[in-house]
């Protein structure tokens, strides 16, 4: 099957029902996407499919045929949110961080300044046990401000 992974066209020979999470981590060697629960509850496995966040533990890889898939590695460490989330201590142990960054990405990229309520809503599917979320919200708002300076 063919897909575009982090901007690069790829051809994969994998079982169609294999979880996208496992394909990304094992067949493609990209371990930045994490498995926290396998039941779609924690969001640590979040990737973008055609720009939309999904939990990759619940996606059969066949369904991303022809799609653009972005994992945390696809940001190449250069997105402002990756820096603000460390600076604001929105990442403590960091295991939820790749999923949080990708889940927040559409909101940060969209020019309209999000309210705190919208930030919470966008991240309601990402569990963090370390931070209590406050610092994550601060990081997302800071990244948005940086991305869309007035």
């Amino acid at each position, binding site marked *: 099957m063919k897909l575009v992974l982090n901007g690069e066209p790829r051809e994969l020979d994998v*079982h*169609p*029902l*294999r*979880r996208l999470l496992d394909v990304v981590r094992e067949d493609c060697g990209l371990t930045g996407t994490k498995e926290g629960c*396998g*039941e*779609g*509850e924690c*969001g640590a496995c*979040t990737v973008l*499919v055609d720009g*939309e*966040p*999904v*939990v990759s*533990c*619940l*996606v*059969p890889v*066949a*369904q991303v*045929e022809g799609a653009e898939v972005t994992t945390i590695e696809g940001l190449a460490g250069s997105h402002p949110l990756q820096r603000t989330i460390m600076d604001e201590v929105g990442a403590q142990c960091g295991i939820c961080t790749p999923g949080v960054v990708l*889940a927040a990405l559409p909101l940060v990229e969209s020019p309209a300044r999000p309210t705190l309520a919208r930030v919470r*809503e*966008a*991240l*309601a*599917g*990402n569990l963090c046990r370390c931070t209590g979320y406050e610092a994550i919200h601060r990081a997302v708002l800071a990244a948005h401000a940086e991305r869309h300076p007035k």
Partner: protein
Amino acid sequence: MRTATRGFTLRRERTLAAALRVLREEPGTVPIAGCTDVYVALQFGQSPGERYLDLTPLQALRRISTRGDRLVIGALATYTELRRSRLVRARLPMLMEAARQVGGLQIQNRGTVGGNLANASPAGDTLPVFAVADAEVVLAGPDGERRVPFTGFYTGYRESVRRPDELITAVEVPPVEGRQWFRKVGMRAAQAISKVMLAAVRAGSPRLALGSVAPTVLRLPRTETALAAGEPLEAALAALESEIAPIDDLRSTADYRRAVAANLVREFWARTT
């Protein structure tokens, strides 16, 4: 313990006819779309089958449109698509609210209306909405299309009249007169399976449907009759008590579900005068 899928097969067909042929010729094939329930089942070792049919290539089934005065929601419409639809916002805002309260955005981006219906859980988030809207389920099968009133679609716990060789292609919703109401009560504010859920319409003939208080989603005919007849609210709630059969489970108790179901109806009634 997670089920291995390597021995399973997946078919993907580009047309509805081809998909139906697979269901006919390979009985036991499990249709899948968003996989937000099926893959959870696999994670916990409860495999629904070994042969799967991916419906997502059937793009026509994603559409949200109208047919005459009816709203037509394609089976593959996701919760996100429902939330973004001007048609849904205008005609069925209680469905938008239900979609908004489904899981986090990641689940909303994948879960489909058809999947919610086919999964047939009494806790399905869209089910009370369609029940109270007197919707129709559109099924495609070997003999063509048939329509089933939503209120006749479920026959028991996780059982519907959908035959194994049929697919849900759409839900059709006639115009809803009156004010729409939806409230879901879960274990927490977000990303929660419902403990009790009410969809309702306030009109001359009020309509109410509850999720998670019986083996299937429930309309409440006796409660509705009492309210329509202008009986006092407490009489209607007594009727409600007789119509529901909540249980204790890992998430909640029958006692709680009973009390909150009544509160939800009270709240709806008071807030929609």
